């Protein structure tokens, strides 16, 4: 009858397997751990509150009373963006007040509302070349956005990017949203 090898594993063999397993798990951990942070950050990207809030800002820009001149459009082409302002609403003071109140109530940061070209590449380039002017979280959001190079199905030429500043339990947190604009 054939003689069986029933010596079991040697210590060296066990150690080699243990080291191998530890290496594999540490590689997996280092690769997956950043994904958890990424997922938590993206909880604040285009969430439902920011999306409906930016929709009302879009309605303001698209209304006939919001002035977007040819010079503004040239600036968007040249610099990648212009900033939104309720003062660009012509005529009606009540509408300006409603615009201000909408920004206040939605938590939109008036200094961080950008009107950019529909394709985001110029704005990405502008942000990348002037990092100190933009908050790190905003830069991350802009990096995360696609370039939308295929164009809009609705014929939109512009895009809004808004930073919303929320405070809960004395903690500040920011959410980000984008929406296309037809003007």
């Amino acid at each position, binding site marked *: *009858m054939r*003689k*069986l090898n*029933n010596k079991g594993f040697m210590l060296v063999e066990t150690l080699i397997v243990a080291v191998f397993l530890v290496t594999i798990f540490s590689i997996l951990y280092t690769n997956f751990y950043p994904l958890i942070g990424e997922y938590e950050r993206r909880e604040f990207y285009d969430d*439902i*509150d920011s999306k*409906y*809030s930016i*929709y*009302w800002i879009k*309605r*303001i820009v698209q*209304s006939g009373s919001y002035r977007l001149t040819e010079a503004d459009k040239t600036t968007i082409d040249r610099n990648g963006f212009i900033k939104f302002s309720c003062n660009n609403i012509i005529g009606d003071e*009540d*509408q300006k*007040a*409603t615009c*201000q*109140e*909408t920004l206040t*109530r*939605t938590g939109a940061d008036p200094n961080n509302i950008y009107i950019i070209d529909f394709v985001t590449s110029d704005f990405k380039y502008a942000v990348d070349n002037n990092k100190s002017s933009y908050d790190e979280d905003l830069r991350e959001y802009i990096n995360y956005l696609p370039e939308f190079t295929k164009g809009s199905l609705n014929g939109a030429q512009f895009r809004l990017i808004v930073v919303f500043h929320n405070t*809960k*339990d004395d903690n500040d947190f920011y959410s980000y949203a984008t929406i296309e604009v037809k003007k």
Partner: protein
Amino acid sequence: MKKLNSKGLTIVEILICFVLVALITVSVYSSISTFNNKKNVESYKEKIYTYKNTLTKIIQDDLIKNGLIRASYDLTTDSNNIEIYTINLSFRDGTSKSLIIKRRLAMDFNEAQENKEGVKKDDYFMIEYDQIEYPLPDFGEYQNDRGETIKDLRINNIIVSTNSNVLTVYIGLYHPDLSTRYGISLVCPINSF
């Protein structure tokens, strides 16, 4: 015939095994416990998101598609001590709908310890829109010192405003593991833009 090793394990070997298993269990227990808590919190968050997203979408769709031309609200308290916020919305197509938020808060622990007498009030929360009730997700409940039922998920604050022709409704939710981080937020300009 081959001779078998039939000696079995010695008591020392078994003891070493037990010690090793105990050490491993203790070292992974805290990790598993943290993971379990995180899993529960994520599950609460998911349920709150589903509830919030459903309600927000239904109301905002009406505000966007039908166009809000008028909004008014009032606050009353009924005979069961329930605060009732009624927000009446009138739309461009001539229709109108009501958003009703009902809330009755039981006393929290400190209040309940100091005040053991008087009428007992259990937590009660309900949101109604267009005559359809949307009960808060059920995350469980417990009782305070007065024997009142306190729900784990509560409506902790309600803000309604129509200042400067902008309707603002905020329904703040509270959960011990999530604090007041989540809520239902509705903002809509009235008869403008």
